């Protein structure tokens, strides 16, 4: 288990950045963001330590590795990890680096193994990370090697609704508490209809943009009609229906989690609440929507009385986007300040077969991913925006996340869920960067817990 990762952050400064100068990068009261957050090398390295190594990171869904020995490779920041199911059925998240010289144990991105054997000198690790074999232990090492101290480094791993997460921090709260209401509502959206399973094939591509520009874009319902106008012309999707209903609901949660986008009016939801699940299925057939679905009764428990109304986009801080009302999720993996890998995971109900399954997968393949009719146009906006964060003059200009600032009031429901009901806005983006400054300046988890913003009053 890693020490709290602040070893390179000495005497309150890191390559010239101290708490005050990091705080000055974003002003939640005005919405102005310093462009250097999308280009500065030192800030990026600090993000790997202070955000990715300390937060819970999505690793894989249970259905990706159903059998003992099944593994899937993912990352915590830039640390490569193996998620593997062992003989007892437990999922272990292990650093993919041999304790001898550091070589990668798994070089495939997914597969099945009985144990992990290093290709360099043949050190052999069990599926739970124990070092079980060292060639020449007696002959060359004279039995001096203490194998019990040389197991693979483990990340802490926990599961919510079948989604496996991992952290390198011993001090992080439980996954349940880290997710908080907004994070649990977001993952609840994935499971609101039926039990789900992953569809084989994770789309992966790399975009020359800062990871946070990709993340903050998911809250941005302002760009949809303009950036994606040509997808509208293609006939695949009528974006005005995706933007239905017109009112936007933003849920602002712990540690930077948020859900933003169209929200069903309360009166509509009140009517739906009177219907049986069968009546909801019949009603959905009458909807003129790309994904004609109405959540069943059980969704209330998973998403809460406010969350169930959301037709928007959850982000589990820092980098897990849930979209298409739970059909897909996209992980944005940092690769230096100017590059991000996008990994698309697609899920369908276990019960879905034939035409129903085909239509869901058709929507997923044709909207998102590098060849998706929507997503093709995002990358250029993000890469050109990132590029302009490096120019000596252009980086001084700031980014204006000012839409709706100071105009909306947070409402708190009886169940404690907090939301803003408004029109198109930039609340989600501001919430992201506000949380980012807390993550970047808190010296430890205790400080982060104490300072994680609570949405209240006027935002």
């Amino acid at each position, binding site marked *: 288990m890693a020490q709290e990762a602040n070893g390179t952050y000495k005497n309150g400064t890191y390559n010239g950045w101290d708490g005050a100068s990091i705080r000055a990068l974003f002003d939640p009261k005005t919405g102005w963001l310093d462009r250097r957050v999308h280009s500065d090398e030192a800030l990026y390295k600090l993000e790997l330590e202070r955000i990715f190594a300390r937060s819970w990171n999505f690793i894989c869904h249970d259905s990706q590795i159903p059998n003992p020995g099944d593994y899937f490779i993912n990352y915590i920041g830039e640390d490569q990890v193996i998620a593997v199911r062992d003989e007892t059925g437990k999922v272990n998240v292990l650093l993919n680096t041999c304790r001898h010289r550091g070589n990668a144990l798994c070089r495939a991105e997914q597969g099945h193994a009985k144990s992990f054997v290093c290709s360099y000198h043949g050190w052999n690790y069990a599926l739970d990370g124990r070092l079980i074999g060292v060639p020449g232990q007696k002959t060359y090492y004279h039995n001096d090697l203490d194998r019990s101290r040389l197991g693979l480094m483990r990340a802490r791993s926990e599961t919510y609704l079948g989604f496996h997460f991992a952290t390198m921090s011993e001090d992080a709260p439980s996954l349940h508490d880290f997710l908080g209401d907004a994070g649990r509502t977001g993952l609840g959206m994935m499971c609101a209809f039926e039990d789900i399973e992953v569809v084989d094939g994770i789309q992966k591509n790399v975009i020359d943009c800062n990871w946070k520009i990709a993340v903050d874009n998911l809250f941005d319902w302002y760009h949809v009609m303009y950036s994606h106008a040509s997808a509208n*012309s293609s006939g695949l999707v009528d974006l005005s229906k995706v933007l239905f209903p017109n009112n936007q609901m933003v849920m602002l949660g712990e540690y930077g989690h948020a859900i933003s986008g169209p929200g069903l009016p309360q009166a509509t939801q009140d009517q739906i609440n009177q219907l049986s699940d069968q009546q909801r299925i019949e009603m959905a057939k009458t909807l003129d929507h790309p994904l004609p679905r109405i959540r069943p009764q059980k969704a209330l428990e998973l998403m809460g009385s406010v969350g169930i109304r959301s037709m928007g986009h959850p982000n589990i801080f820092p980098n897990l986007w849930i979209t298409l009302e739970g059909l897909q999720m996209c992980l944005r993996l940092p690769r230096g300040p100017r590059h991000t890998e996008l990994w698309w995971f697609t899920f369908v109900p276990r019960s879905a077969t034939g035409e129903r399954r085909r239509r869901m997968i058709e929507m997923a393949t044709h909207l998102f991913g*590098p060849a998706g*009719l929507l997503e093709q146009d995002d990358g*250029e906006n993000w890469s050109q925006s990132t590029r302009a964060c490096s120019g000596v003059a252009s980086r001084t200009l700031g980014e204006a996340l000012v839409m709706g600032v100071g105009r909306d009031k947070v409402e708190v429901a009886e169940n404690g869920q907090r939301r803003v009901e408004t029109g198109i806005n930039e609340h989600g983006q501001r919430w992201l960067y506000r949380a980012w400054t807390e993550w970047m300046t808190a010296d430890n988890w205790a400080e982060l817990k104490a300072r994680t913003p609570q949405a209240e009053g006027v935002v």
Partner: protein
Amino acid sequence: MSAQALANPARKASPGMTLSDRALLQFQIEQFLYEEAALLDAQNYREWFSLVTEDIHYWMPIRRTVTRSDRDREFTKPGDMAFFDDDHRLLEMRVKKLEASSAWSEDPPSRSRHFVSNVRILDVADDDITVDVCFHLYRTRLNSEVDSWIGRRTDVLRRFGTTFRLAKRHIFLDQTLILAKNMSTLF
């Protein structure tokens, strides 16, 4: 679909064909492939689209880095996730998007060059000819962006008078992580 079968598809014997029949067919097919590549490079997508059949399947599965023992799972299977999985209707949507005045990812337009080589006729069955080719799609964009996609395709060309129509294009890219911000062009 096993990777071995994909990497080295079996060539069926065409017993009735003489060497000169085969040479003529090879020439006709290569000319067709060059012509349709030129249409794509000229961004004449509508005319290119007129060369595909109503029952076209235009498909690029997702490739994964897997161990040798796991090679039958190297590519996703039909019906699972893919980068492209288009019938005639969906492929036409891509053309319409490219024709729209707001297709920002291709305006300013990219410059592309489609190369095809290693053309092997695998099967001649009635009017459908199965062809295996290697391709290189080179794209530059704005001032400094370069994308280079190499792979192989299995195309089915259907005889249409003295020329052909494209009835199937299955694209097997030699990348697992796609090293590009998008794939906004056609292969």
